[in-house]
Structures are given as C-alpha cells and as structure tokens.
C-alpha cells in the first residue's frame, strides 16, 4: 500500500461504469474550486466537479485518456478514484457532429430565452456541448 504509485479510476453514470482503469498515476480534475491534480495516496476527499474534462494519465506506460464529464462529483479513498456523474463520455466516443448541433441549438435557445430559468437551462446545455466538443477535438 505504501509504495503504490498508481491507483484505480472509475467513472460511474446511471448507465453503469463507462470507464475503468487500474493504473493511473495522475488524474487532472476541474473541481468547483479550480483545477487539481490527484496522485496516488491522496487523502480521502470528495469534491464537486464542473462540467469539464477529466484527464487520466499513466506516464510509465504513456497512457492518456480524456473524458467529458457532465458535472457530478469525485470521491477518492484507498487509492480508488470514482467520478459519479449523470453523464460522461470518453473523448474518443463523442460524436462531434451531434455535439456541434447541440451547441448551435443551445446558442439559439440562449438568444431566445425569455426568463432566467430558460436562460440557465440553455446556458447549461451550451456548456455541456462545448465541453464535449473540446474534449473530442481540442477546440
């Protein structure tokens, strides 16, 4: 336990585990308080996530995976990092065209929004779409 350099990472959504990796050395998260990196043997913590990207890395094996996460939160205990979100996708699985149409739709709605609530919803949808596009293409 004390000489563990890597830790497990899982991403759990209502559809089940969408991502499972046994040997991450570094995970970069965007929490509500800012960007943080998590390495093995971190203290147990729970933190809320932004609608953002999560980067999972293992430098020894030159492994890197990018995920788009729709908010949610992250939990870390016993060298097991679990991201619990209502939606998450691996960057490679994202349908960029669909995300692009979602972005345009959200932008249109944002312009046409009549009240605060509609505006908030459109804003959230836009954030999600932009996040997915960014994760998939780097744009």
């Amino acid at each position, binding site marked *: 336990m004390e000489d563990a350099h890597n830790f497990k990472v899982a991403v*759990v*959504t*209502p*559809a*089940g*585990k969408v991502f499972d990796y046994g040997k991450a050395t570094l995970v970069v998260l965007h*929490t*509500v*308080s800012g960007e943080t990196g998590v390495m093995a043997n971190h*203290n*147990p*913590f*729970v*933190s*809320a*996530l932004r609608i953002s990207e999560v980067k999972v890395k293992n430098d020894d094996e030159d492994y890197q995976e990018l995920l788009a996460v729709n*908010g*949610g*939160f992250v*939990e870390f*205990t*016993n060298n097991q990092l*679990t991201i*619990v979100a*209502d*939606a998450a996708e691996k960057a490679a699985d994202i349908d960029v065209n669909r995300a692009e149409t979602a972005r345009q739709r959200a932008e249109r709605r944002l312009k046409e929004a009549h009240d605060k*609530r509609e505006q908030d919803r459109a804003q959230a949808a836009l954030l999600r779409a932009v996040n997915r596009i960014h994760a998939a293409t780097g744009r």
Partner: protein
Amino acid sequence: MTASLQGIQRRISSTQSTRQITNAMKMVSTAKLAKIQRSGDGYRVYASYLQNVVAHLAKAHLGDVSGTLLETRAAKKIGYLVVTSDRGLVGGYNSTLIKAVMADIQQRQLSKDQLVILAVGGNGADFFKKRGFNVAYEYRGVSDVPDFNEVRGIVKMVTTMYDNEVFDELEVAYQHFVSRISNEVRVVKMLPVTTDDLEAKEENPDTVPPEYDFEPSPEDVLEVVLPQYAQSLIYGSILDAKTAEHAASVTSMSAASDNAEEVINKLRLEFNRARQSAITTEITEITGGMAALED
C-alpha cells in the same frame, strides 16, 4: 351441449390464436424484463455511490440547510408523482397503484386543491384527469428500457416545479419490483430529501466508511450532490416501476395463456362429446333403417 360441431371447432381455433398472441406477448415482455434488469444493475452501482456520499454529507453537514433540497417547507401543496403504464394488459398493475394513492390521499385528508398530480404513464394521467384532479404534468411514452437521458426531462421538470414552489413536498408512487411474480406498491417521500434512512443504513458494521475531506466545503459539495441524488432517486423509481410493469405483463400474459389452454381443453372435450353423440345418432339411424329393411 348440442352445439354444432362446426361452431365448437371455430371457437377452438379462435382461442388457439388468442393463446398464440398472449404467448408471444409474454415472450416479448420476458425479453424486455431481462433487458431492463441488466440496465438496472448499472444504475444501482451509481445510486450506491451517491447514497454513500450523501450519508457522509449528512453527518458532516451541520450548518444551515435553508435553500437546499434538505430544507423542509410548510407543506401547503403536496405533489404526487404517479408512475403507471401507458398500455393495459398488465393485470392489476395500475389499479392497485392508483387505489393505494387514493387511500394515501384520503388518509392524509388532503383536498383536491392541496394536491398536484404529476403523471408518468397514460393510465394514471387519464384516471386523475377524469376525476378533476390538478394534473400539472403528464408524460406518456416512456420507452421500454428508459435510459437516464430520456428520464432527465421528467426529473428536471419535477425538480424545477419543486424549486418554484408549485408543490412543497413530493411523494413518488410506483410499483416496486420484488420478484418476477410479485410487485409491491410504494409511496415514498422524495422531496425534500431526507437522510434519515441513510444514516440508519450506515450503522452496518461491515461497511466502515472512511472520513472524507470535503473540498472546497461540505456546503459546496452538497449543492451539487443533493440535486443529483434527488434526480437519481426519481430516475430509480421510474426504472423500478418499468421493471415491475414488464414483470406484471409477463405474469398476466402467462395467466392468459394458461386460461386459453384450459378453455381449449374444455372445448375439445365438448367437441369430442358432440362428435360422439353425432356418430351414435348416425349408427342408431342406420341400424334402425337396416332393421326396418330386414322385416
């Protein structure tokens, strides 16, 4: 007893085709049940993580809860989310649920203007509308194996209505799937969120939970986790209800097939009897005729 042979034959073949249909429907529902049970497994993993964290928060978070989903408001209006099926052929699935909801309403002595009905599924929507209840939301056509994306619309609408104080308390009524042959009606209060049952569960000695640091603060985490938790609860109950619906459909269709089988057997017996008596009559007539010739 002396029905015509042709008539009985016709009834047998029509019952046979009915049985074929109910049998096919049973098979379809069995397949759907298996599918939804598989997708339910994924959800349970997700829900257990959420529960765990909410339970921890409930312990850590002792500060001000006003403005969050934990806050209890004076219950002026009560929302009932009633999850029924769109179609029939599911036995007593809908009627027992609706009966239980009505009993609950009566027991709490709520009048119609204190109630807000949110109906998922056509059966419940029609029932409450016909009786002049305030049906504030109606959703039909939940797919056979609903995924979170589909239900998200329903769940968001429900939580938004709660935020806007359309109602101050939410009861979710649904059929809980117990086993392939039995369901159980549940009426559960889901909003405001209560953490009482969670804390009770946590006293299990075999799941000694670790202590967490909440970053940046328990309040901030709570703000994200609580709505997610409430949404997952509602999604879970819809998923559960749908599972129960498929199970109820399997049971009622298999009962219908068995019934058809029984009817067919009875008709066969009747048919054979009628045929036998027809033959007997014919023989009597022939021998009678022969006897007349011999004389």
